């Protein structure tokens, strides 16, 4: 069947978009609010995913494994932040990308625990059975759902909940202090704001959110491989952020859908090219899109144009 017409395929792409949306909401807190240029964001997703997978494959019940995995991702954020957050922005960016790569290589090399490049199989544990139970429940009521629908719904419910939670604290004095840190650390410190703690909290919150995206990713893929967590994932996240608009939660949602469709969708379009060239083509498309954005709408789809030229 033509994949473009298959509902299951588009359901999959939309689920990927939802996972990205959650992932980038974490980035939005760090970069959009606190001004932290975190180039190693994928590491927090990896912690969330592998912590879930390792606990589940070692017999921990899923409902315990998932919150623990999210907490571990936050803890990893604190661990990365403690030695690095006193660094200037660009140095921080370099350290985070290195930390992410170190984690990925450790995962790759600890084959006995993680399966290394062969992958961590059945990382989502009994999710498939749970999914079937849900589908049976609906079919018992005369509704035949595609097997991908439950996770699609769960993913987007989680994405919307995270976005609502962030909006809930959006007008709080905490976020005001965070934005002040982004604008000028000295000015914030001069009126008594604990700059370092605020940055650490933003990093950990963003890491926890990325950890949630790692959990969803695990349920979606069922097996985990180190190459799922290469730096390109972080940069796809940044593309979404630029596309949607830094500072806009709704922009993250729309940006995620557009980028997920380009990345997952392009390979199924009928180009007169070999498969590996088509795979490369999607990044060309993303690159052109970002360049076009920078030239014609640098604030992103939903960013505030008037904020763009306000420096100093």
């Amino acid at each position: 069947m033509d994949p473009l017409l298959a509902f299951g395929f588009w359901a999959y792409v939309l689920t990927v978009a939802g996972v990205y949306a959650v992932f980038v909401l974490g980035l939005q807190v760090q970069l959009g609010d606190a001004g932290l240029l975190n180039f190693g964001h994928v590491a927090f997703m990896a912690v969330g995913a592998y912590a879930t997978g390792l606990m589940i494959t070692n017999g921990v019940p899923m409902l315990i494994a998932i919150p623990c995995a999210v907490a571990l991702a936050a803890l990893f954020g604190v661990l990365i932040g403690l030695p690095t957050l006193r660094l200037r922005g660009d140095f921080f960016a370099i350290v985070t990308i290195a930390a992410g790569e170190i984690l990925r290589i450790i995962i790759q090399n600890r084959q006995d625990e993680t399966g290394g490049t062969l992958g961590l199989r059945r990382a989502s544990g009994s999710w498939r059975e749970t999914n079937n139970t849900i589908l049976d429940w609906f079919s018992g009521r005369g509704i035949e759902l595609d097997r991908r629908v439950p996770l699609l719904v769960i993913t987007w419910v989680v994405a919307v909940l995270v976005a609502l939670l962030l909006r809930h604290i959006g007008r709080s004095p905490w976020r005001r202090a965070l934005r002040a840190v982004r604008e000028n650390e000295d000015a914030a410190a001069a009126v008594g704001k604990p700059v370092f703690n605020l940055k650490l909290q933003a990093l950990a919150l963003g890491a926890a959110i990325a950890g949630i995206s790692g959990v969803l990713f695990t349920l979606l893929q069922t097996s985990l491989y180190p190459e799922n967590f290469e730096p390109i994932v972080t940069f796809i996240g940044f593309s979404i952020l630029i596309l949607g608009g830094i500072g806009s939660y709704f922009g993250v949602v729309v940006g995620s859908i557009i980028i997920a469709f380009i990345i997952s969708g392009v390979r199924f379009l009928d180009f007169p090219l070999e498969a590996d060239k088509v795979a490369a083509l999607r990044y060309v498309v993303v690159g052109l899109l970002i360049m076009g954005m920078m030239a014609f709408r640098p604030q992103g789809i939903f960013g505030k144009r008037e904020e763009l030229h306000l420096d100093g």
Partner: protein
Amino acid sequence: MAESSPTILEVDDLRRHYGGVRAVDGASFTVQRGSITSLIGPNGAGKTTAFNLLTGFARPDTGRVVFEGSDVAGHRSDRVARRGMVRTFQLTRVLGKMRVIENVMLAAQQQPGERFVTAFLPTRWRSREEEIRHEAAAVLEQVGLSEKAEDYAATLSGGQRKLLELARALMARPRLLMLDEPMAGVNPTLGREILASLDRLRHETGLTVMFIEHDMDVVMDISDEVIVMGEGRVITQGTPDAVRSDQRVIDAYLSGGSGHE
């Protein structure tokens, strides 16, 4: 009791070297509670470095900074500020992508909603936030920026940024307000009004003010005490009249690079 001591700040043998440059080279002075004290000196005398050392923006090599009875030398800048020593910057640091009123509201103390967990519970901080908003509006009124309250701070002119810095520092309810050349670039009439309102504030609330000023004449009239620095040291400390006629001060100003302007 530290609170009742007539001395709010006592600086003892403060030193900071940058490579071979002795930016502050053994400065000692005191600031009396409720006074307006000016720190003057020619370019390169170490005034701003001294401010940085006092407020935690630079770490002294040696020396003591006794504020309200305890040594804060080497403490983090945000801690020093929470203790009540709040500074402004010579080169203004406005939060450009935030509204003017947000810049001021930021400085409020005792806002429980600034803690991460409490941020999720608006009932715990909303009423305090309303108080803060009113207070910030009043402070903006005081410095003449009311009309700009909802503008982005980055759109302010140089002089207005100085006023915003002052408003932010006042909003923090300092016990010792440290102003680094606050009048530079501010229109003189408004400058005089602000000096008058600072004078009023210290009578009403017991605020202590310390100025850095390059131009002696600006601060002589309103200062109770003047500290003169030159080449990293304190040359003399005394009343404006005593300082004005001190031969060492005259020498420092004549020899010490006042031509750099």
